[in-house]
């Protein structure tokens, strides 16, 4: 029953939606991409329907069945033509079969095995997750599962220290599995965390495989998976890995839209869904969602195909509507005020933003941690820079890549501004969060960097 609750039902729902968006024959070699993206999106969707089931006072299995029926209907209607990735794909070049290029998949496999060992070691030592996991997400899941009709006790004023204003994707996913099981198991949060870390790595590799080639895909996978802090955050069951997944998914789908215009509106709809899930995962995801949707609106005003861009944006907003409706209801009706906003006055924020020392502190912290956040002495960001230097940058950049870089730069700027104006001890806040924030952005930076490269491998 646990395996049906997760990962089977979310993965099938997400996979069918991906098949509806990108089509495909019975067996397609791009199905790993659909499975990776589908698992994350399906998990997000089922957490939204779990929230709806709490509001309606109905068992979540009923809503899951409706979601499954909708996904199957969309697949039946749209998904049975040839795969858009396979159609028109050039045949594999002979150069890809040379011996050095065969080493990279093996290297990726060995590093992935090491990461799995680390995950298992950490997860067995801390089955309830790290501090933030048990005190915020898993505790909220306990409230949702144990309270019955009184589940809104999870947002009681006495629990202000546990950030009751954080959105419910992770706790909802955990409580949903416990509802299927009819009992609590620490395997549920560990399974959700493992699902997201595997899905993030697989999505990065498979989307670069589609948009570039296998060698670059393996190189990007090694750069992501060899960062011990990425696996550690997953084993601690923090929500930063799901945020990284949904940001990567939104950026990847934006790039796929450009390359496969035949399905651009369906892919835009899924990009919107991914962006909405960012806001449903964490408060900083709300900022990332706003940045993403704002930049995605730009081509409507400045692009050459304004009408087509408007239709794409409508599809994007449609995709985001379910998670955003959940976020809006949660934030407006249930959640108390955010501690960063409630503890803020305009005068104090202005005073902090006029303090040059804070800018220097935050800039220095970013400059230091960009080399250390991965938890490995050979900083992946340096390896990536050398990699990009060797291959050069494509000119001109595709519009979707320009958009992706703008989104990532705006996201970093957004985090910078939040650090500047937020109340409390700045040093404490920086040391406690900057590495996690860089991990949120790292898979998307890897994807965008590799796609920016000039030459084939």
């Amino acid at each position, binding site marked *: 029953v646990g395996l049906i609750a997760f990962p089977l039902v979310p993965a099938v729902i997400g996979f069918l939606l991906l098949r509806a968006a990108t089509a495909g024959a019975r067996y397609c070699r791009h199905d790993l991409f659909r499975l990776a993206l589908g698992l994350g999106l399906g998990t997000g969707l089922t957490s939204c329907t779990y929230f709806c089931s709490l509001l309606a006072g109905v068992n979540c299995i009923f809503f899951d069945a409706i979601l499954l029926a909708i996904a199957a209907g969309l697949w039946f209607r749209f998904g049975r033509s040839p795969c858009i990735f396979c159609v028109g794909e050039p045949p594999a070049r002979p150069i890809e079969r040379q011996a050095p290029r065969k080493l990279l998949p093996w*290297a*990726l496999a*060995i*590093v992935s095995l*090491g*990461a799995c*060992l*680390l995950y*298992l*070691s*950490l997860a067995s*030592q*801390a*089955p*309830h*997750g790290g501090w933030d996991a*048990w*005190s915020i997400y*898993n*505790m909220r899941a*306990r*409230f949702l599962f*144990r*309270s*019955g009709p*009184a*589940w809104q*006790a*999870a947002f*009681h004023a*006495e*629990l202000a*220290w*546990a950030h009751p204003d954080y959105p419910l994707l992770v706790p909802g996913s955990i409580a949903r599995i416990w509802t299927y099981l009819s009992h609590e198991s620490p395997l549920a949060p560990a399974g959700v965390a493992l699902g997201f870390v595997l899905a993030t790595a697989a999505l990065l590799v498979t989307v670069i495989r589609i948009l570039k080639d296998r060698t670059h895909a393996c190189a990007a996978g*090694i*750069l992501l*998976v*060899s*960062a*011990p802090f990425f*696996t*550690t955050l997953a084993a601690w069951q923090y929500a930063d890995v799901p945020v990284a997944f949904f940001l990567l998914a939104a950026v990847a789908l934006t790039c796929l839209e450009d390359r496969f215009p035949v399905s651009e509106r369906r892919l835009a709809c899924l990009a919107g869904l991914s962006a909405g899930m960012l806001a449903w995962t964490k408060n900083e995801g709300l900022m990332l969602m706003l940045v993403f949707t704002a930049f995605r609106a730009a081509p409507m005003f400045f692009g050459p195909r304004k009408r087509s861009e408007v239709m794409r944006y409508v599809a994007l907003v449609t995709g985001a509507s379910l998670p955003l409706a959940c976020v809006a209801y949660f934030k407006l009706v249930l959640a108390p005020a955010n501690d960063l906003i409630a503890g803020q006055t305009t005068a104090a924020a202005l005073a902090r933003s006029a303090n040059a020392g804070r800018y220097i502190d935050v800039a220095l912290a970013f400059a230091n941690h960009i080399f250390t956040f991965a*938890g*490995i*002495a*050979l900083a*992946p960001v340096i*390896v990536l820079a050398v990699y990009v230097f060797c291959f050069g940058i494509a000119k001109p950049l595709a519009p979707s890549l320009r958009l992706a870089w703008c989104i990532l730069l705006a996201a970093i700027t957004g985090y910078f501004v939040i650090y500047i104006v937020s109340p409390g001890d700045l040093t404490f806040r920086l040391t406690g969060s900057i590495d996690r924030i860089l991990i949120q952005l790292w898979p998307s930076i890897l994807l965008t960097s590799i796609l920016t490269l000039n030459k084939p491998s």
Partner: protein
Amino acid sequence: MACAGIFYLLQAAAAPRTPYPPGLVDERFGELKRSLPKDSPPVGYLGDIALETNPSGYYLTQYALAPVVVAAGAHRHLVVGNFARPALAPTLAAANGLVVLHSFGNGVFLFREGK
């Protein structure tokens, strides 16, 4: 990069671990949790470690007792006690106007207002 990655991943996997309190707290508070109804109004909290110094004991108590809300402070009709040194419990309870309702062992108590 792959070699460095595998070295660091294995090194991190083999690193010594510190004790893990959330794994123990469910067992320790299990009997108290069963004695409190799910729809109980918020209960208070009293411990021998000041919350300002180290609130982790209070947070873990709340984690174990969810969905009952545990309020910081002893000004409630029912108060949960979490003591590393159980011998201090009666003295601290009396100082806060509480009487011991039940001792569950392992430094876990349930107090009520003394009036």
